[in-house]
C-alpha cells in the first residue's frame, strides 16, 4: 500500500498522463482494476485543437511528440469521460493545464465538486503549448500556481515537474511549500528532429517532447535529487519500460511510478510491471 496525499494506492504503478487516454481506449487490453491509479490525458478549461501534423516522430530509443494538449475541455470530460473512469474502481487523478494560475484554479474548482475525482495533477510542464515559458521553469510561478489551486481544493494535489530546468530541486521545493501533496517527474525533455531530405523539422510544431527509454537516466537522476531533498512523496517516471526500470525509480527514492510511452508499445505493460514490482517488494 502506498499513500500519496489522501489517496491510497494498492500498488505503486500508475499510468502517465497523455499516454493512456481516458482509460476506455485500453479496455480489454489490460485489466484496468489492477492499476495503482489512472492519470488522465491533460484537460484544459476550454477545448484545445492541438498542434499541426506531424505530431509524432520516432528517435533513437525514444520518441518526440507535439500533441499540443488536444482535448475537449473540462465540461466534456466530466460529462463523457469521468463516468467510465469512476466505474473502474481505481483512483482517478485528473491532469489539468492552463495558461495562467486563474485557469488552473477554475479547473480545480470544477473538479473539486466531482466525488469520483481522487486527485489533481497539475501539468505545469507541457512543452507543447504556445506560451513564453513553462510554469515549472520558474519557482515563483510554480509556487503561486500551486498555492492558489491549493486554496480551491482539498483533493490530493500533485505538481508535475519539467526536466527542462537548471535545478529541479528548487522547483520541487516551491511546489511542496505551496501545498502540493506530491510531485511527479519527469515530463518530457524538449527536443527536435530534422528531415535531411526536405531540410525541414520532422514535427509540425518544430520542437516536441522527448520520451521513452532514452530519457530514463536523466529521469532517474532527477528523481533521486528531488527525493532526497523533499519530504513529500515523489512519483517517478521517464522511460520506464520494464519492472526492473520501475524498481530502479523506487530505489532512487520514488514512492510510486508512472508508465508512459511504454503503453504505446505494449498496451498491457503496466500489468506486467505491477507483477514484477510486487515480486521485488516481497523479496526485498
Amino acid at each position, binding site marked *: 500500500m502506498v499513500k500519496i496525499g489522501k489517496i491510497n494506492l494498492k500498488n505503486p504503478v500508475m499510468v502517465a498522463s497523455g499516454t493512456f487516454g481516458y482509460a476506455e481506449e485500453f479496455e*480489454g487490453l489490460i485489466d484496468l482494476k489492477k492499476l495503482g491509479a489512472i492519470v488522465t490525458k491533460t484537460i484544459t478549461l476550454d477545448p484545445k485543437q492541438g498542434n499541426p501534423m506531424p*505530431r509524432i516522430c*520516432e528517435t533513437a530509443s525514444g520518441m518526440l*511528440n507535439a500533441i499540443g494538449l488536444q482535448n475537449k475541455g473540462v465540461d466534456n470530460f466530466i460529462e463523457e469521460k469521468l463516468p467510465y473512469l469512476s466505474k473502474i474502481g481505481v483512483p482517478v487523478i485528473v491532469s489539468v493545464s492552463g495558461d495562467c494560475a486563474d485557469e488552473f484554479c477554475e479547473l480545480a474548482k470544477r473538479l473539486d465538486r466531482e466525488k469520483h475525482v481522487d486527485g489533481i495533477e497539475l501539468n505545469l510542464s507541457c512543452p507543447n503549448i504556445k506560451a513564453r515559458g513553462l510554469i515549472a521553469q520558474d519557482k515563483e510561478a510554480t509556487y503561486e500556481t500551486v498555492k492558489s489551486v491549493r486554496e480551491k481544493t482539498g483533493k490530493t494535489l500533485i505538481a508535475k515537474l519539467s526536466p527542462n530546468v537548471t535545478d529541479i530541486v528548487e522547483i520541487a521545493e516551491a511546489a511542496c511549500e505551496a501545498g502540493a501533496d506530491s510531485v511527479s517527474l519527469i515530463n518530457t525533455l524538449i527536443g527536435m528532429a530534422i528531415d535531411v531530405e526536405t531540410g525541414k523539422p520532422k514535427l509540425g510544431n518544430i520542437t516536441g517532447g522527448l520520451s*521513452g527509454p532514452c530519457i530514463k537516466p536523466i529521469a532517474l537522476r532527477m528523481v533521486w535529487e528531488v527525493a532526497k531533498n523533499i519530504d513529500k512523496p515523489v512519483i517517478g517516471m521517464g522511460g520506464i519500460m520494464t519492472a526492473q526500470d520501475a524498481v530502479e525509480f523506487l530505489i532512487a527514492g520514488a514512492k510510486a511510478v508512472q508508465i508512459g510511452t511504454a503503453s504505446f508499445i505494449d498496451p498491457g505493460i503496466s500489468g506486467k510491471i505491477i507483477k514484477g514490482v510486487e515480486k521485488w517488494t516481497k523479496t526485498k
Partner: protein
Amino acid sequence: MKDIKARILSNKEIAPGYFKMALDAPYIAKTAKPGQFVQVRCSDGFDPLLRRPLSIHRLKAQGSPRLRSGQARLKGIEILYEVVGKGTKILSEKKDGNLVDILGPLGNGFTLPTALNLEPSAILVAGGIGVAPLVFLAEELAKKKIDTVVFIGARTKKFILCAKDFKKLGAGLQIATDDGSRGYKGFVSRLLKLRAGTKVYACGPRPMLECIAGMCIKENVECEVSLEEKMACGMGACLGCAVKVAGNEYKLACKDGPVFSANKIIWLR
C-alpha cells in the same frame, strides 16, 4: 481488438523490396474488415521503439483452397509491406515460426458501395504499396458480386503488385507506370474514368489521393481514401495521428480513419 503473439507462417519477397508475410492470427482474421490495419512490433527490444502500422492485406484461410467447403475457417492474415526503414527491414529478416506481437484489427475500414437505384460498382486506385489493403477490399467486393475495376500505379513494371490477385477475382485491371515500362506512362489518376453510381477507393501517396479526391468531388462521385500518418499507439490514446477534416476539426487516422470520405478531408497541412 487484441494484442496477439502471432506465429509467422511465411515471409516472402514478392518483388524487389516488397514482402508478403502470413501470420497465424485467427481472432484478427475473424473480426477484420477491409481497410483496417494492425500495429506490428518489429523488434523485441526498444529500438526501433514504436510499432509499425501495416494494413491487413488479405485474410488467410485454413488448409488449401481446394479442400475448403463453404465458409472457410480463417487462420490468419497477410500483410504486404515495402522495406523503407529500420522497422520494415527487421520484419523482412524474420523467419517462418518466429513470433511477432500484432495489435488489431485497428481503424474503421472501407464501407462497401450502396448506390441507390443503380447497380453498384467500384473503382480501386492503388499507388505503389497502397495496393496492400485493396486486395482484401476487392475480395469483399467480389463476394458481393460488385463490378470492380482496379487501377494500379507503380514506379516501373517490376513493382506492379497483386495484378494476378485482382484478375483472379474477376476485376478489370488498368496499369500505369512512371517510366511507361507497362501500361500507361504517367500518373494512374490520368487513367480514371468516373461514372455516376460508382464508388472510388484509393490508397497511395498523399498527392495522388488529393488529386483523386478532387476529381471525385468535381464529378460528384463517392470516394474513400486511406490516409497514412505517423502514429505511436494506433488505438486513439496518443493523439499523434491527427487528420484535419471539414469544420477545421481533428480526427484520428488510427481510430476515426485510416479511411476517410474524400470530401471531408482538409488537405493543406
